């Protein structure tokens, strides 16, 4: 279990330090830091702090007994959400450091999670497109929205204008594309999070097939665009038609995911 916060929240707490019974601890000061880090796995574990806040908890001295330090970070700006991807991790930590001379500092970290909610977008156009292979297959598909929240439902339909190939089935995939790095060092990782069969058998001309895909069962995150110039996470709907010889015909469309601020 980890604590969950969102941007602009006050992060308030206390740090309790209790030396091992009967021993005194000499130190050069105690501080607590709030760090927002992006860790790129391929970069040999280097990470970048995009947020770093410090509170001094104690001046140098000695500790003889259990001592409690309250702390507070007020209205902390945490623009990015925690994310744990294939090649990248974005995390928030609270780091307590007891500085010491001659011996190594005592460091203790505590992760917490940040999620940021957004209100429903004011503009949310449908996705509508006609695609096809000349003289083989022409379809028109429509997704009612281009932006979905995480518990949303994708509603839409596929209209068959021309079918000259022997279709076996049709599915809708939700794909996540995580790209990290920049320039020549860009790493792209694509995962298929959902495979949802839309049609069994072959539709004929004039047929329209409904789409209704509930997103809640899948572990999705909001779309992240160019987070601190380090990474992006994008979502796509991939419509796949499979023919009897298992050839796949597909069309991919980006959708934007967001975390809905639920009006309570």
């Amino acid at each position, binding site marked *: 279990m980890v604590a969950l916060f969102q941007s602009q929240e006050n992060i308030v707490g206390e740090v309790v330090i209790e030396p091992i019974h009967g021993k005194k601890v000499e130190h050069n000061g105690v501080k607590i830091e709030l760090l927002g880090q992006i860790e790129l796995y391929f970069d040999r574990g280097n990470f970048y702090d995009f947020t770093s806040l410090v509170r001094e908890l104690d001046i140098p001295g000695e500790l003889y007994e259990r001592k409690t330090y309250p702390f507070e970070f007020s209205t902390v700006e945490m623009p990015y959400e925690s994310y744990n991807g294939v090649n990248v991790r974005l995390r928030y930590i609270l780091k307590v450091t007891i500085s010491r001379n001659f011996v190594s500092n005592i460091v203790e970290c505590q992760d917490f999670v940040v999620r940021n909610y957004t209100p429903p977008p004011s503009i949310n156009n449908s996705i509508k497109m006609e695609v096809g292979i000349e003289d083989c297959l022409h379809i028109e598909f429509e997704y009612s929205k281009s932006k979905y929240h995480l518990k949303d439902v994708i509603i839409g339909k596929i209209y068959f204008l021309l079918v000259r190939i022997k279709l076996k089935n049709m599915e809708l995939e939700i794909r996540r594309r995580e790209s990290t790095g920049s320039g020549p060092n860009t790493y792209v990782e694509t995962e298929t999070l*959902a495979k949802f*069969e839309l*049609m*069994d058998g*072959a*539709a004929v001309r004039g*047929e329209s097939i*409904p789409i*209704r895909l509930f997103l809640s069962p899948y572990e999705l995150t909001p779309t992240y665009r160019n987070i601190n110039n380090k990474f992006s996470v994008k979502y796509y709907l991939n419509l796949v038609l499979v023919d009897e010889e298992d050839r796949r015909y597909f069309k991919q469309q980006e959708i934007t995911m967001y975390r809905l601020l639920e009006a309570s």
Partner: protein
Amino acid sequence: MLNGAEDEEKWLAEGIAGIQHNAFYMHRALDSSNLKEVLKYSAQMLSELRTSKLSPHKYYELYMRAFDELRKLEMFFKDESKHGVSVVDLYELVQHAGNILPRLYLLCTVGSVYIKSKEAPAKEVLKDLVEMCRGVQHPIHGLFLRSYLAQISRDKLPDIGSEYEGDADTLKDAVEFVLQNFTEMNKLWVRMQHQGPGRVREKQEKERSELRDLVGKNLHVLSQIEGVDLEIYKETVLPRVLEQIVNCKDDLAQYYLMDCIIQVFPDEYHLQTLETLLGACPQLQPTVDIKTVLSQLMDRLSNYAQSSADVLPEILQVEAFAKLSNAIGKVIEAQVDMPAVGAITLYVSLLTFTLRVHPDRLDYVDQVLGACVKKLSNIPKLEDSRAIKQVVALLSAPLEKYNDIVTALTLSNYPLVMDHLDNGTKKVMAMVIIQSIMKNNTRISTSDKVEVLFELIKGLIKDMDGADVDELDEEDFKDEQNSVAGLIHMLYNDEPEEMLKIICTVKKHTMAGGPKRLPFTVPSLVFSALRLVRQLQGQEGDIVGEEVPATPKKIYQLLTQVIEALSTVPSPELALRLYLQCAEAANDCDVEHVAYEFFTQAFVLYEEEIADSKAQVTAIHLIIGTLQRMNVFGVENRDTLTHKATGYSARLLKKADQCRAVYACSHLFWVDGQDGIKDGERVFLCLKRALRIANAAQQMANVARGSSGPVTLFVEILNKYVYFFEKGSQQVTGAAIQGLIELINTEMQSDSATPDTASDAFLASTLRYIEFQKQKGGLMGEKFESINL
């Protein structure tokens, strides 16, 4: 290569095993109320239905297994206390399944619970379900899925009066749902046809037809919806269903569904929507068996017409006949390749309908026949035996209905239809007509009708062109001709003038019949004419002044011609009999010269044509018998004729025949009645002559065989003696009788006598009679006293 059927068995077994396996885990999950597991295993179980390897028949087996399990699942879903999830959430939850087929089965199952819970209007849920099912486009999968949908929704339609009734449009929603499911199912069903290569087409067609009831079930459901009244049916249901039927352009589906409509909806609806229903027929594929469909419809309507008296006006009001007739015309026009049998069958059905519904409208009947003639005239030659059968049915129907050929004779197109039959069938039909007349004792009473009738049965009356005479079956021919002979007696009118016309018409036709037919038809014609003669005789005196066309004279001329025709056969025996009949009629009409003429003809025949001794014997007895009854002749004519007759008698070949003929001649001289000739002298002469011949016969037998024959002849002559003795002939005395008896006794006791029980008994009873007369007393007793036995 593996055997296809074996493979299929294997796949089915695998599918069943898969269902059982997952059902086992599903049951466990059900028992422990573990919703997540339930959904997982039920979806896996239903995945078995995704197979494409099974034929419809085997797939059905698999489906039924899954179906049973789904019912358990539904029970579980219904009990919220077990899984703790509201039905609304459940409805979403099952849609998370990744594969569409299991997803939709589960959705339908929850949907059923959802409607029952009444948390959402039935129409919303149904609409959603029927819409979502579009995702399954695989024909067999889709058909069974939608059939499942139909099954679970049957008792949950928002019908009027149902507990799921919704707002004002509730009925529309219910109908719309079923119609949509029907349309989609039919599309899937039709699509099956277009799959796979041609060589397996036949098998596919068979498999397809196994599935038809899944589609038809929807129509049945529609007919069961309470709220579907005539108006809804007319405005919505029928047009929509027909639209689908016409548009699907598939002959199997079109035939089946048209039939389905006719069967499942009430007759009253059909009647009121006849135009729409029939309007669809010409639009169907040319290969559709419309004739059966329409026949069914007409059958139903005509049964309906007879179900109650209230119905008939309704039928008249909607002009059912005109509509049906019109539709049939259009169908035949549209289906150029329809074989003759199809078209004719349609006309038979229409005719049946007409006869049952409009028995009084002969014009309709004639109209149907006329339409049929038109169709037939486009066919060069009717050879299809089934088509011929139908034509016979077409022609027989009015006869059966009206029990009266006269009605049929007024139908101008009736003979035209018959013209299209081959000779053999024409005969069969002619027999049907004749039998109808005979059975119903129908009298044909005008010469015009007779003319038409003979035109109809001409196959029996004369040899047809091209008919193969050799192939005639003798028995059949006899039957046919006997029927014609019988028929002639049914042609009758009390009015002599018309009757003469009838006779002339019959004569005209029968004379053309040729030597084989004349012996059968001529006697009937003769007797028919003789009846008229006698009738005229009875009426004579009533007719005054005006020229009477029907005179006995004319008829006698006609008769002579008719009988003379027999000479071509030749059949002198028959002609002789007929001449005698004519003579007798002439006698009754008191025309001596005519009677004499007929006798002359008979004698000429006897002398010139009848050579066979047996035939002579028969003929001479007929002549004697007839002549005896004649009282028209003057002495001179009579003498001539009796002289001839006795002469012929004595010249017969066998002595016994001579003897019998001669003693029979005795009657020619003794006729009972006041004016009767009573010439005892010549009677006695005849008898004595007979006795002489008998003696001679006896002696000849003695010489030839060494034994005399039985005394039968003597006993016969004895009887004649007794007869004339009783009648009071002076010449036949008691002594003569006594003498004869003694003669007989002597004969019997002679050594050469052959004992014969029959003649012994004959003698004994003759003697007993004499004894009896003696005992009786009175005048007769006294008379017989003189005979001593």
